[in-house]
């Protein structure tokens, strides 16, 4: 899969690198992992622990911040700096850290409750500001840690402890919401597909600004099999569309399906054998405007919809933290660093002798 890079490793530009080749072990903390056996979080953890060393960064310059939830246990298991904070607030906390420390690679982890329910506002604001954060949503469409209530990404009609006769509210489509919130990097991937997951994470890491990645994650205990249709060898080829930058959008075991624009401002799924290949939509993550990416994000929202995974959008826009720092540098370049004595004695003064 091709990874869209805006100017190489721009996202990591200011983070110190090392020549020493680290390993997964270096990124594994000494804390016992405490997820349920079989939880999709294990796969994600393993992927992250394996892929981080390849970034070649100094481990001490990586920070992982989470809220509360099963997913949010993540930082404890990663041998970097980390903070397990409070429910929903990790994007805000991370914003402060990233803005004051350009030399860090800051990762934010949260579940669908953490990011989409209580933390929804911090998430969309971090995205709109384009703070240099990598935000990983572990979407298991359920509240795991509190033992199984429905979440804002649960499908309508879901029967859970808090919805004994079925939930009634339309779920968020996290990719659509992120795009509506001006996100500059939006992607989706699946816990069990290590290769895809890793490539998306790498693209996120290298993006400068806020990178939002929805990871479809299985909760063994309270929502088992939620993504089976996307994973099952028999169904996955027709259920999943793998978006690849610069390539026509096709899927099916042998690419027998494709996506193209309709004349009415929508997308349609077609048999690739029946249409000219030039008419298929070529995926381009770098559209200035998010409308087309938004349209792709809706492919799964219809009956028998297909779920696109991969990078939906990756555009180059100034990052909030970079600009905060630039304003400081400009001020200092223009008038020198602050002089405390001069500040205190500024304004109308008088002297008593």
């Amino acid at each position, binding site marked *: 899969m091709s990874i869209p890079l805006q100017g190489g490793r721009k996202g990591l530009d200011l983070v110190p690198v090392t020549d020493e080749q680290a390993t997964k072990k270096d990124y594994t903390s000494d804390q016992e992992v405490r997820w349920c056996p079989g939880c999709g979080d294990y796969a994600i953890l393993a992927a992250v622990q394996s892929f981080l060393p390849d970034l070649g960064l100094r481990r*001490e310059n990586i920070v992982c911040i989470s809220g509360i939830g099963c997913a949010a246990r993540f930082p404890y298991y990663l041998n970097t700096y980390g903070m397990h904070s409070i429910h929903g607030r990790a994007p805000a906390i991370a914003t402060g850290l990233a803005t*004051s420390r350009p*030399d860090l690679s800051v990762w934010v982890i949260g579940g669908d409750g953490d990011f989409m329910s209580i933390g929804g506002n911090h998430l969309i604001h971090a995205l709109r500001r384009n703070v240099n954060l990598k935000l990983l949503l572990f979407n298991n469409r359920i509240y795991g840690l509190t033992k199984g209530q429905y979440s804002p990404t649960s499908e309508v009609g879901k029967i859970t402890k808090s919805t004994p006769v079925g939930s009634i509210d339309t779920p968020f489509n996290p990719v659509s919401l992120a795009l509506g919130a001006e996100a500059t990097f939006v992607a989706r991937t699946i816990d069990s597909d290590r290769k895809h997951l890793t490539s998306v994470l790498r693209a996120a890491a290298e993006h400068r600004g806020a990178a939002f990645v929805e990871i479809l994650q299985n909760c063994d205990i309270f929502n088992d099999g939620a993504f089976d249709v996307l994973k099952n060898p028999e169904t996955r080829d027709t259920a999943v569309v793998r978006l690849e930058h610069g390539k026509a959008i096709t899927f099916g075991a042998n690419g027998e399906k494709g996506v193209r624009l309709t004349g009415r401002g929508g997308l349609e799924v077609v048999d690739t054998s029946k249409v000219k290949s030039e008419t298929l939509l070529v995926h381009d993550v770098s559209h200035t405007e998010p409308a087309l990416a938004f349209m792709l994000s809706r492919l799964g929202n219809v009956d028998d919809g297909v779920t696109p995974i991969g990078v939906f959008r990756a555009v180059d826009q100034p990052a909030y933290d970079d600009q*905060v720092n630039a304003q400081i540098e400009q001020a200092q370049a223009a008038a020198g660093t*602050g002089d405390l004595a001069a500040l205190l004695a500024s304004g*109308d003064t*008088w002297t008593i002798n």
Partner: protein
Amino acid sequence: MTKQVQQRERVIIRFAGDSGDGMQLTGDRFTSETAEFGNDISTWPDFPAEIRAPAGTLPGVSAFQLQFADHDVTTPGDAPDVLVTMNPAALKSQIADLPAGGDLIVNSDEFTKRNLAKVGYATNPLEDDSLSSYQVHSIPLTSLTVKALEGYSITRKDAERAKNMFALGLLSWLYNRPIETTLAFLERKFAKTPELARANITAFNAGWSFGETTEDFTVRYEVKPAVMPRGLYRNITGNTALAYGLIAAGVQSKLSLFLGSYPITPASDILHELSKHKRFGVRTFQAEDEIAGVGAALGAAFGGALGITTTSGPGVDLKSEAIGLAVALELPLIICDIQRAGPSTGMPTKAEQSDLLLAMFGRHGEAPVPIVAPQSPADCFDAAIEAVRIATTYRTPVFLLSDAYLANGSEPWLVPDVATLPELNVEFATELNHHKPDGTPEFWPYLRDPETLARPWAIPGTPGLEHRIGGIEKADGSGNISYDPSNHDTMVRLRQAKVDGIAASIPPLEVDDPTGDADLLVLGWGSTYGPIGAAVRDVRDEGGKVAQAHLRHLNPFPANTGDVVSRYSRVLIPEMNLGQLAMLIRARFLVDAMSYTSVRGLPFKAVELSEAIREVLSS
């Protein structure tokens, strides 16, 4: 006509007009002139809650009071000697505060039928007998100004607007103020529109001349300069002093400032001020809400910045959970609460001291947080530095409790010599600090300094000290998650002991008891310092024996507080709440402290306090 000159020891002036009349500016300028002259001053701007309520209405009245004197003043005064009212609404809302015989300057032009009706005056008070107990100076300020500005190529609206400068000129004449700073100010303010600058200067001068010539004023007043310590002075509001104190603390500690804040009255000006000082490396983050504001400050603190958040009551409510996290993380964090009148939205521009117990107890679980409170506008500078000292030394969030009255009030400030500011040495951890049973060295993020009980501040980017912290209970020392019952008990008590232990680093509570034999102690905290001091002085002047003490540290109390309050047979605690400090003192020291409370959104008047003190003394 030469006018008679009378000496006065102190004068209280209140300017009042419509929000659009520029009363705050007028007050500011008079303050500057007066400071320049060398009087001691205290000011009190009193804004309406509305941005700009419909012109001429009662809710739209904006006032500015100042007291200046040839001696030390601690309050803007109780009742004005001179009340300037620019319209009927101002007259109606303020007149009750003017004592009989006081000077009342009125802009008669505004006393039209329509304007009178707007505020419910059936007859024109300038024409009926209702103001007969005052020295009324009914002056057509607007038309005199417009007339003085004939010939200037400015709009009629602009000409009318200059009436505040006319009034200022008149008052400046009346008290013989130096006028250079005001002229320079007007040049600066209207630098881009020189015609307006000239017009305003002309209006000012016209007001001055009006004083000279009119027979309405037969007396001028003189208030001698006050004897004040030598040095460079400036006038400063509490919010500016607080911002400067934080910047100074940043410089002294070599930490870069990160402010995470969401605008709210009366705290917003600190955000505004700090956002100007990018040259000091100050980063200001206007967050999406208060939770994000404090969260970002805490995140920055994790990264080694001096994390600050500024807010008022409603914002503190929202920040509670994150402050609790800061308690668990044991990271430095400054929470500035500029208190206003509650509950709920309350009266957002008015002052109150009703967040003390919120600061003490407003978090779930046992989550103690130190509290520091400034006692005057300029003192906000020192209090901010003290808050930072505690936060960085003890690795703890700290509450700085100011209020609307301190925030906007101002007083002359002897600009400190930077060399005399407290040193704030903050060291980040760089070394492993513990050994595993097998002897390998490791890092324990919760290994405490035996003296302060502070934990190491190891910031990301430090090789070898990678660690994770969080809000779940941590094992004493290693900081790993622990659900061990005894460990939890230990940690709860350690966190409390750490905060209690701060008492060892703070100066004892000083008591001002000149005769040494008072049996009543008046104990206060925060912005009531001025009025309590004035009241105590008044009572003493009449021979009353009364001691005064004022708490800067509300949590923990200075170590000698128990001794102090137990030494006096009676303790009176005046507060602008329903007795919050009194509750803490009673619970802690079992003394039958009496409360004197007033919850009017206004600072205490010295007279009401002296009355209260007298009553206790005579009971």
